[in-house]
């Protein structure tokens, strides 16, 4: 019998142990960025090398894996990572949120509320929420250690001063259990409330930056704001063009070269499930209907 070309789920067992130790430490200190010895993965940085390593470390033969990229199950990143684990771990894969036990995600949290038996793994490009305000790593570590987070509010202040409202729409900084300020990865701020007290375990992996952090189930996660400019999420003026859903995060799709566009659910599984249940939206925009009335509002 020939030896398998890979260990189960690609990584060797020592590496998985090392990553699991980092994950456990991250769970013990919610929001704290744990350094780990990130490995080279067979995909470029920026494609989810951190998330893939976390998934590989927690994946078991009985798990059912779902991978989404910007909410969609059928984009390049999602398809290739799903195929990667189907091949190297021979695990079942799905596009149904409810059926999955592990969901690896880039830039979204599914619309359907996650359950206690599920784990969501986020791909994180820059884990340090203070990085663009303070470039020195030595300094940001001290700032986390001493809980010096005034600088985050300087950024929010600048937003209000320039735009009249907090214009940060993604990677919106959060405070975890009143202690660590954390970058929730580039999810839209629409998804920030879903982080708060989620029954699912939430893990964050940054491959290039070699950091892992975690939110144990039911962790309190607060989006930072000002007393007179409270945190708000994006709202959309129209329902999904395909499934008529409201109160979900939408993608804007350009449909022709005459200004036609439509808004559809960013979460493809959510949209398809609703369509299968018989919900239908207004469909493609009528000719001459212009985008100005479809503008996304952030207030």
């Amino acid at each position, binding site marked *: 019998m020939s030896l398998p070309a890979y260990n189960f789920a690609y990584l060797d067992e020592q590496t998985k142990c090392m990553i699991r130790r980092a994950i456990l430490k991250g769970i013990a200190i919610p929001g704290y960025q744990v350094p780990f010895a990130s490995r080279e993965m067979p995909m470029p940085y920026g494609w989810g090398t951190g998330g893939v390593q976390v998934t590989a470390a927690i994946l078991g033969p009985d798990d059912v894996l779902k991978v989404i990229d910007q909410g969609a199950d059928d984009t390049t990143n999602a398809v290739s990572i799903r195929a990667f684990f189907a091949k190297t771990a021979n695990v079942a894969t799905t596009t149904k949120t409810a059926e999955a036990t592990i969901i690896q995600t880039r830039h979204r949290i599914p619309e359907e509320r996650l359950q206690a038996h599920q784990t969501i793994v986020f791909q994180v490009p820059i884990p340090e929420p203070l990085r663009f305000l303070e470039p020195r790593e030595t300094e940001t570590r*001290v700032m986390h250690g*001493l809980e*010096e987070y*005034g*600088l985050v*509010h*300087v950024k929010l*202040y*600048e937003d*209000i*001063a*320039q735009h009249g409202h907090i214009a940060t729409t993604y990677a919106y900084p959060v405070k975890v259990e009143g202690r660590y300020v954390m970058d929730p990865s580039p999810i839209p701020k629409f998804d920030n409330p879903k982080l708060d007290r989620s029954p699912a375990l939430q893990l964050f992996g940054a491959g290039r930056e070699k950091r892992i952090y975690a939110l144990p189930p039911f962790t309190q996660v607060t989006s930072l704001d*000002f*007393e*007179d*400019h409270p945190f708000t999420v994006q709202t959309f003026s129209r329902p999904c063009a395909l499934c008529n859903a409201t109160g979900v995060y939408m993608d804007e799709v350009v449909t022709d070269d005459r200004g036609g566009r439509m808004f559809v659910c960013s979460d493809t599984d959510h949209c398809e499930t609703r369509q299968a249940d018989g919900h239908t939206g207004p469909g493609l925009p009528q000719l001459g209907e212009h985008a100005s009335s479809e503008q996304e509002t952030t207030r």
Partner: protein
Amino acid sequence: MTDPILSVRGLEKRYGAFIGCTDVSFDVWPGEVVAIVGESGSGKTTLLNCISGRLERSAGEIRYRMRDGRFPDLGHLSEAERRFLMRTDWGFVHQNPADGLRMRVSAGANVGERLMAVGERHYGDIRRTAGDWLSRVEIAAERIDDQPIAFSGGMRQRLQIARNLVTHPRLIFMDEPTGGLDVSVQARVLDLLRGLVTDLSLAVVIVTHDLAVARLLSQRMIVMKGGHIVEAGLTDRVLDDPRHAYTQLLVASIPES
């Protein structure tokens, strides 16, 4: 007489065998301006950096009177306490405003940063306070959303002063605050500083090589040479009746106007 706010005893800073400053002892009382003068390389900036905790000292004692009356050696404070002190009770005005300002965030946020650092979370209040301070340092209210890179040198220096004073500190360190400014702007900044120091009864330790600045601002002065204090006393006394040969040379080197 009240107790000193800052007390330095036998301070020494060595860079290997080389002496930055040594055997420095002096006190600063609340509301008093002390000037440290001397030529380049005399150790005055080293001294200032040691006192303000920006440099590790080699030997000696630096005690500071906290708001609660304690008088601890700064080396015995935790890093958290020291950093908290630095952004609430102290200020540091750099010679180059770019070192003390965030050049890419607006003037209002620069002034408001310390407020946000101590937990102020009301945008309207922060902005109002920032606006007040900008007017106190004579920066027009409509410049509040402009970045310091769009400001002139004098405006940047005044903004840096406002940024330091917003938390009502009790002790300010200044390193050649007017060093990079032309003479007319210098006069304006000095005038502003003198007014603010008196109004707020700040204690100030100011490093300068310009005896005119020392004369204008300070009540007492310390003359340094080669890392040592060569003469200390009331500013008028030192400048009008210098005793040490080096001070005499220094005073005599001011061109007659």
